[in-house]
């Protein structure tokens, strides 16, 4: 490690410059914008209105619904992702022939463009010609067609399943590398002591995975909450506003209705809610 005077700062100028320009400046001006009325259709000049945007948000039923939906969306997606990623990681950690190919295939959906994933699942969930209805009808599991994405009972499970198909890959890779960092001797010792497979998993594997899992789940919560793509592509927050969540709500307020001040206020509320997770994450990180 060298001691430098000016060189390290000069090398960091481009990176820090971009961070300030694209993260710090917009964040500060978004917070400022919260207290202004900026309705681009009416006028280009912001008007100071104090806390009025926030009181409007409080009364906005769609915003309240989108916050409530975000709980299902974030909770459901992460539970689903953890279950799939953990199961798949345990499978892929066993030594067998073709393991490399199987591991590769497991993370394939992760690189497919999100728009394609949206189209793909809309096609599978299609009421008339979808694969899901077709399979369930011909297997006589269903007696009539289900509109998976617009039925209020099937909507969230359908969205969450599609989202997990796309996003579990990251958790899978993290869990797998966590599993592989557990030394084999630990398992050998447990077998000698007569622990069953289930007990080994519960008392050895899980506790040793905890550090990786904590970080991955924290990131998962924030990423799902902030996500705009999946819900927008599958339902556009509909039918009506039934599946509205944070990301699409802020997007529609700003880039459909040009209610920039109001959208910024909604965005900042969500950002403040996620800050807690960010702080936990950053305090967990050690930089040598």
């Amino acid at each position: 490690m060298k001691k430098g005077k000016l060189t390290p700062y000069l090398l960091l100028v481009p990176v820090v410059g971009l961070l300030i320009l694209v993260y710090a400046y917009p964040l500060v001006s978004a917070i400022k914008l919260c207290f202004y009325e900026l309705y681009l259709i009416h006028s280009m000049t912001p008007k100071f209105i104090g806390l009025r945007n926030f009181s409007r948000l409080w009364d906005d039923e769609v915003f309240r619904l989108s916050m409530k939906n975000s709980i299902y969306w974030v909770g459901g997606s992460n539970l689903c992702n953890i279950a799939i990623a953990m199961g798949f990681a345990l499978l892929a950690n066993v030594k067998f022939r073709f393991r490399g190919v199987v591991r590769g295939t497991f993370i394939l959906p992760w690189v497919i463009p999100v728009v394609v994933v949206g189209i793909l699942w809309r096609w599978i969930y299609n009421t008339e010609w979808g694969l899901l209805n077709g399979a369930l009808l011909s297997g006589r599991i269903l007696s009539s067609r289900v509109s998976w994405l617009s039925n209020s009972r099937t909507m969230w499970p359908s969205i969450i399943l599609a989202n997990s198909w796309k996003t579990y890959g990251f958790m899978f890779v993290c869990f797998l590398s966590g599993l592989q960092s557990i030394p084999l001797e630990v398992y050998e010792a447990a077998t000698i002591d007569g622990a069953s497979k289930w007990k080994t998993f519960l008392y050895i594997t899980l506790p040793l995975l905890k550090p990786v899992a904590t970080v991955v789940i924290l990131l998962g919560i924030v990423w799902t909450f902030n996500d705009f793509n999946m819900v927008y592509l599958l339902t556009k927050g509909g039918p009506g506003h039934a599946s509205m969540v944070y990301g699409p709500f802020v997007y529609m307020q700003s880039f459909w209705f040009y209610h920039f001040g109001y959208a910024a206020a909604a965005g900042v509320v969500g950002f403040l809610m996620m800050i807690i997770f960010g702080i936990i994450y950053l305090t967990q990180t050690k930089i040598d």
Partner: protein
Amino acid sequence: MQTYHLKWKREFLAKSIFYGLIIIALLWVVVPFLWLVVSSLKPASDIMRTEIRWIPKRITIDNYLWTFGIEKAGTPSAHGQTLNILVYLRNTLIIVLVTCVISIMFSLLGGYSLARFRFVGRTSIALSLLATQFFPVILILIPWYILMGKFHLIDSLWGLILTFSAVTVPFSTWMMRGFISTISPDLEECAMTDGCGRIGAFFRITVPLTLPGLVAVMLWICVIVWNAFLIPLVLCNTPRTKTVSVALSELIVFHGPANWGGIMAASVITSLFPMIIFMFIQKYMIGGMTVGAVKG
């Protein structure tokens, strides 16, 4: 004998359950995408059918022709215009390549600085790289859109390149910092005592040694930028500058008829680029390249 037989039986059972689970897992991953590919090869009359047919009765490339702007005479053009996917692919490719170069250049310098020097503010800069993960892009985009408007960078590929460089630079800097700190500084010092100078040592020792990781990060950035949707949706949505993701998303119809065959052919084409890249970086991804972004 009896016990041996029992043991063999139990092992066989365990093995069958294991492979059964692997097959179910593989089916869940592969079936949705395979269905997309199969559907893209079917003529319209076969696509809109309730029965599930995995092997099309008649294979057609009409859907693919439609995405390239060629509509065969005689096909009912109820779907109106064809898609000019080549224009959107070109836009996307330009953005991807330029962003990639900028992001890697900046992050190589920044990562080197963070890995090799000790200075006031080092920890806070490193932490702020990680903190960007928690920023909601949609919130950032509101003031950013206004600012870009002032500089006439809406509907401009340069505006998009600037934005994407900023979005990808924290990740790549963090990764480069990791790669460079695994190389012993002694190597550079040797080169420097041999009269290389710091810059010479950087290009002759550090860059070549980090090259495999650097290429992997670069390719991963290509995938991220190619697949991005929200940012180009907000900043570039005229036919001239649209990216392929935005063009595809506009084909999703919520009410009324849609040309599903064409949509799915376009989806397959769009997926090719990241899937080819994926084959090269697969082993880095499983090796935990992206995990590096999570670990301290």
